[in-house]
């Protein structure tokens, strides 16, 4: 790969980032700062990230800050990050997020129920939340680091895709194991199988532990290899990260390849 191609890929990766802050210390002030930083990248000649991802109390702030930028606002739901809550509580959470104006819902997969063997309950939960979300983008976070085996990641991917997920996402970022090449490869295989079977187009969002440009490039190349270049758009591919954006910007703008 030439230096120009390398840089071009980093620029494209930049435009696929869900620029994320999901900390207990988040506030309106920090959300404003996050959004302004996302906008600032655009002012430096970089593309803006695909979306900003914040907790639901900060969705309105993010929407106001990002107005006209082309960025969407995502939020997490479903008892993030563990997913341990009754369905009614999760529905209320999703309803609140949608009322606030969230464009995208990153929903936690109930892996506790899934690993107990009750796949139908998990399917029903995603399906009903899918209905609530209507035309909004629904990403289902599998937390692959807790599912453990490729077989379970494969089963969970199929379940989420069949229940109506627009994207399947690897991780919450709150456990040590985030996205790995193996887990992403398994998920990409299931997205391709779903596409071949139904014609439906679904996306992938590696997240968790992606702070290095090289690692993001690994996932970018994996998506291109397994699903094709046409999947390298923000409608089909996102990368959940925060620190990555600053590092990419430094490499791209300071030409440190």
């Amino acid at each position: 790969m030439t230096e120009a191609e390398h840089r071009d890929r980093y620029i494209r990766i930049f435009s696929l980032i869900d620029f994320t802050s999901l900390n207990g210390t988040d506030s309106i002030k920090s959300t404003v700062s996050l959004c302004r930083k996302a906008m600032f990248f655009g002012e430096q000649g970089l593309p803006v990230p695909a979306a900003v991802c914040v907790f639901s109390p900060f969705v309105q702030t993010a929407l106001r800050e990002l107005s006209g930028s082309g960025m969407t606002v995502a939020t997490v739901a479903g008892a993030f990050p563990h997913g341990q809550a009754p369905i009614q509580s999760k529905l209320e959470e999703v309803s609140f997020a949608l009322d606030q104006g969230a464009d995208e819902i990153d929903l936690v997969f109930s892996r506790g129920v899934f690993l107990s063997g009750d796949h139908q309950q998990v399917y029903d939960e995603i399906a009903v939340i899918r209905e609530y979300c209507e035309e909004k983008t629904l990403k289902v976070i599998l937390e692959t680091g807790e599912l453990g085996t490729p077989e379970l990641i494969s089963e969970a991917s199929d379940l989420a895709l069949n229940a109506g997920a627009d994207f399947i996402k690897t991780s919450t970022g709150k456990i040590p194991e985030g996205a790995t090449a193996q887990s992403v490869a398994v998920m990409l295989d299931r997205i391709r199988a779903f596409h071949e079977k139904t014609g439906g187009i679904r996306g992938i969002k590696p997240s968790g532990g992606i702070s290095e440009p090289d690692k993001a490039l690994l996932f970018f190349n994996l998506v291109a290899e397994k699903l094709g270049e046409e999947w390298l758009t923000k409608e089909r591919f996102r990368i959940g990260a925060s620190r990555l954006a600053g590092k990419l910007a430094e490499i791209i703008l300071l030409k440190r390849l």
Partner: protein
Amino acid sequence: MKKRITPFFAILALMAFGLSGCTDDDPTPAPADPRQIFLGIWSVTETETRLTYEVNIEIDTKSQNGGVYIYNFANSGTSSNPAYAFVSGNTISLDINQVIGDNWIVNGSGSLSGTKINWPYTLNDGATLHYISAVYTKL
């Protein structure tokens, strides 16, 4: 004779008192500030990172907390609020759960060995809890 001796001993006694008084009042050298060995500019390399960056460690003269400021900790930017750390012997420890840079929460301790500090730390950037090993080299 007594009249001659008495003033002589009195003077000696006064001199002795004065000398010992001088000894008590002289500022004795204070023990070296353990923070001194950490001060200055360090070049930092981190695991899995192709970028290196520099940090500047300065003594906290603004408060009575007894720590140091670390500017650009975790490459958070020199204009960002600095990290705060405490020094004990050869160990430098970040103040617990402090927020720096872009709302990053950092924790961890480094240990000085020769001209290097090995500093493993965690950084929660809002998307991920990163486990980072940093090596500081004195410039």
